[in-house]
């Protein structure tokens, strides 16, 4: 078991390294001189030369990569061109905000989707199943940025009960679950974010539970005289690991892919940071944010993988 854990962790390392290579290469994709990318437009020539030497732009690319990687490993991801604050600080602060709504979205989606998916699997083929499947297809097809706008229109514009944008009445940066004043800002983004996971988790649940219900041992349970509810409980317990894995993956996906929602709701998370960076061509922030988000995704996948193996020993990928 621990051998397997070590193997999976070791396996994730080259992937993470590959990710860093891709992130590093992104800067070179951008049109224009990479050095100019890292400096505000009004920098003096001396600054340019200094930066060139510091980042080693006059040296071959592998050395540049290595230097960049070493710096990144110590937390130095450069400085934002806009705010002149260290990229790492900006991103980590934004990350906590993103995690708030992502976690909320996944938990909301899971609680609904799991119940509905199980119902759909139990009543497979009947109207209840088709309705639930329909909902899940809609959840996956709806452009969540549009849904966000619609929700804003409904709740903020027409009904005026929830705030449209931002994270706090005074544009605050910190978030606490304690006060309703703050929480109500998070409601709409969370609901919007939960749409796609809702669809996906519903589909996975339905598939997993339906598969378990088709197993012979379910017949055995019924033959023993167990009530339908008890049988369903057994089936659900067997399907749970698979669904939890999907849920974990969705969480990772949301953290990395929340840019659209956060832009709409002006929620100061990593996604919003990214879109600002794109607008202002703030390359250090862009690069740093992408790197951290991608690495988070790798870490989440790894965690889900290990947890799944711990719960279900049958799953052991070569």
């Amino acid at each position, binding site marked *: 078991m621990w*051998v397997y854990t*070590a*193997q999976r962790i*070791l396996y994730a390392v080259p992937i993470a390294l590959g990710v860093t290579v891709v992130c590093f290469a992104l800067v070179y994709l951008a049109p224009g001189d990479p050095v100019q990318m890292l400096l505000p437009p009004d920098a003096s020539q001396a600054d340019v030369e200094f930066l060139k030497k510091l980042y080693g732009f006059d040296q071959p690319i592998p050395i540049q990569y290595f230097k960049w990687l070493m710096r990144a490993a110590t937390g130095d991801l450069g400085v934002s061109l806009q705010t002149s604050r260290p990229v790492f600080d900006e991103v980590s602060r934004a990350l906590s905000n993103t995690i708030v709504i992502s976690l909320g979205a996944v938990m909301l989606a899971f609680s609904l989707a799991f119940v509905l998916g199980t119902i759909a699997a139990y009543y497979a083929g009947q109207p209840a199943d088709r309705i639930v499947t329909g909902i899940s297809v809609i959840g996956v097809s709806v452009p969540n940025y549009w849904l966000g706008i619609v929700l804003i229109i409904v709740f903020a514009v027409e009904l005026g009960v929830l705030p449209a944008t931002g994270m706090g009445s005074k544009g605050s940066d910190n978030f606490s679950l304690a006060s309703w004043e703050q929480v109500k800002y998070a409601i709409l983004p969370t609901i919007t974010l939960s749409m796609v996971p809702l669809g996906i988790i519903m589909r996975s649940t339905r598939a997993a539970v339906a598969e378990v219900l088709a197993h012979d041992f379910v017949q055995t349970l019924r033959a023993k005289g167990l009530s339908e509810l008890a049988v369903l409980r057994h089936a659900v317990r067997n399907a749970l690991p698979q669904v939890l894995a999907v849920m974990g993956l969705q969480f990772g996906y949301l953290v990395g892919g929340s840019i659209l929602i956060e832009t709409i709701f002006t929620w100061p998370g990593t996604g919003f940071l990214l879109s600002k960076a794109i607008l202002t061509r703030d390359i250090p922030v862009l690069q740093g944010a992408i790197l951290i988000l991608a690495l988070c995704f790798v870490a989440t996948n790894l965690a889900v993988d290990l947890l799944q193996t711990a719960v279900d020993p049958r799953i052991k990928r070569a």
Partner: protein
Amino acid sequence: MTPKRPKLDTVPPGDPRDRGGKVQPMLIVNGLKKHFRIRGGFLNRKVLHVRAVDDVSFVVLKGETLGIVGESGCGKSTLARLLMHLIPRDSGELIFDGEGVGEGHGITLRELRRNMQMVFQDSYSSLNPRLPVQDSIAYGPSVHGKPRAEARQIARDLLAKVGLKPELFGSRYPHELSGGQKQRVNVARALALSPRMLILDEAVSALDKSIEAQVLNLLRYLKRHFNLTYVFISHDLNVVQYISDRVLVMYLGQVVEIGPVEEIYRRPKHPYTRALLASRLSMNPDERIDDPPLTGDPPNPINPPSGCRFRTRCPFAEDVCAAKEPALGTWSDRSTHLAACHMEDETSGHSRTGRALAECKPAFLAATAS
């Protein structure tokens, strides 16, 4: 002046493809070895060897049916694929009709394919689910240069020969056929290249008994009609007895016994063969077996026991069995009956040498009392 060698892709009567003559064995297998490397241990670092086929030697005579029996994991299927050159061998030689195969030898691999074909076990994947069966059969000839129409006609003729009306079954898909019908298609596909030898790997194992009987009779008919040689691999002793002329018994990658079918079934020499035969259930309810003749699972082919591999399950095992590996002996003709057992070898030092084991009856334990 060397006479012109006949081409191997046509079969006029009298079989001029026969190059070696009547006495030349169709196939000579010499010291065949195949070890699979697997990784184990921490970080998949240690390399272990699964000794699937370990120093196997035998001969297949022209026109005979050689049955190969053994339990699961004894290496039968690997052996089949080695004979067919589907997987590369580690060492040993395979001589077909007196000639080696490959570059620098008598016949090329491609020519071998026209002479030796394989019938697979009927599984859902033995036929391409996307092709009508006549196209599956016609694929082989078309690959060897026959135009489409001619290949298709060959396929349809073969379908008729195996008992499936081509008008009815030609354009059907595999999922529209029953198990027995699919197996007939498999046989037809193997015959499409007009081979001289067929290897049948568990060809009837997945079929119901009545269908199995029909397919076996079909195989016997085709053998006469096409002048074929069969190597019939199976774990079903009754089937092998029905169809074989000679039988070869495998255990854990090695040949333990070989001989004519009546000899093997009536007077088996190797304890393993005896145990196998004794575990067959009799139709007579009075002959019940109370104790199983053979218990336990075969040992791990990665680390087989030293000396004789069967000694861990053999009731006659002695020290010499752990020390020295028994040799099969030299084979001379089709009536030779050999067993790789120290009890057969007078010079081995085993206490029971020279004493023939009693005739085989279901009550195995009674025989050992002698």
